[in-house]
């Protein structure tokens, strides 16, 4: 039986595939040039090359490994490079139960990351302590570090982690370059006893 060659001879209709191409940022176009504001370009570049730092302590970490694998492939989102040094990374992904004794470690890792930095709490335990409502478990990592995106689930499916990651990308993309110098941000860090 002949192999179908439709992919070769017919032009594919991709309009309903849900593929999103990155739009060029808003700006002024003319012949041979394009001008836009710097923070739009920076936001675009940053959001498409986030380096995640996985802080995986339990079952959510296994889901993250699936997310990193070829089937779900976090690398599609520009996060090919998972860093294992906080100094090189932009996004701290805390996945799993954080015991109270681990709390200072999470904070230390956060402090070692350079600005701008983002934090994602993956799973019920990292977000709120989850089922471990007990004396030894930190009731959500937002007690020690500020969190940008919470991913619900116990554990969340890789799709949920990807969705959370895209939310982070959205935040990164639209973040003002002045935000990290602002009073509000300083007050936020101050409330966690940082700086």
């Amino acid at each position: 039986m002949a192999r179908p060659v439709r992919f070769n001879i017919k032009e594919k209709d991709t309009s309903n595939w849900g593929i999103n191409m990155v739009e060029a940022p808003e700006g002024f176009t003319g012949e041979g040039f394009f001008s836009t504001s710097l923070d739009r370009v920076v936001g675009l570049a940053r959001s498409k090359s986030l380096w995640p730092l996985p802080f995986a302590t339990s079952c959510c970490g296994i889901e993250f490994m699936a997310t990193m694998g070829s089937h779900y492939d976090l690398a599609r989102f520009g996060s090919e490079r998972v860093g294992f040094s906080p100094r090189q990374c932009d996004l701290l992904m805390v996945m799993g139960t954080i015991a109270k004794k681990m709390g200072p470690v999470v904070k230390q890792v956060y402090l070692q990351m350079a600005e701008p930095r983002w934090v994602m709490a993956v799973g019920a335990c990292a977000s709120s302590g989850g089922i471990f409502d007990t004396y030894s478990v930190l009731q959500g990592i937002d007690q020690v570090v500020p969190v940008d995106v919470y991913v619900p689930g116990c554990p969340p499916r890789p799709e949920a982690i990807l969705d959370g990651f895209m939310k982070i990308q959205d935040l990164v993309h639209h973040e003002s370059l002045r935000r990290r110098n602002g009073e509000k941000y300083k007050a936020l860090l101050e409330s966690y006893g940082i700086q």
Partner: protein
Amino acid sequence: MSLSNDTIQSKLTEKFGDVLTHWEEPYGLLTFTAPKEFNLKVLNFLYDDEELGFRFLTDLTGVHYPDRKGEELCVVYHLHNLISNVRVRMKVYTNIEQPDIYTATGLFSGANWMERETYDFYGVNFLGHPNLKRVLNVDEMDYFPMRKEFPLEDQTRIDKDDEMFGR
């Protein structure tokens, strides 16, 4: 020539008389209670005696009985004779106001961390322990979480509405 529970019991009674009480054998595990001043004497005897030879401390832990006035805290020793493969269990009770018990670290080095853990969770004060500080919980913890007057749930949590949990 295996070591039977009857032999162990008669040897202990011969040595210590009526001091050891509450003899029982649940599931064949010989269990008895010793006064807290006698815990080291009994452990030493069980260790040194040629025939008994309980030279391995399997476990050391605590239990809290809030309803037993004057003997709220219990320290349980599990001993193992590795040659005859026989085990015994010794319980020592203490009051909760002054939970002082002699340490077994001189006899068993393995008791070091087990006693730290028992101190960590029940607040049993092991007299003579070389390094009696918390081993599993955070150092800042100011209570003993396995004592029954403390609720299991984390008390620092504010987002949980008791109404939703029928409390």
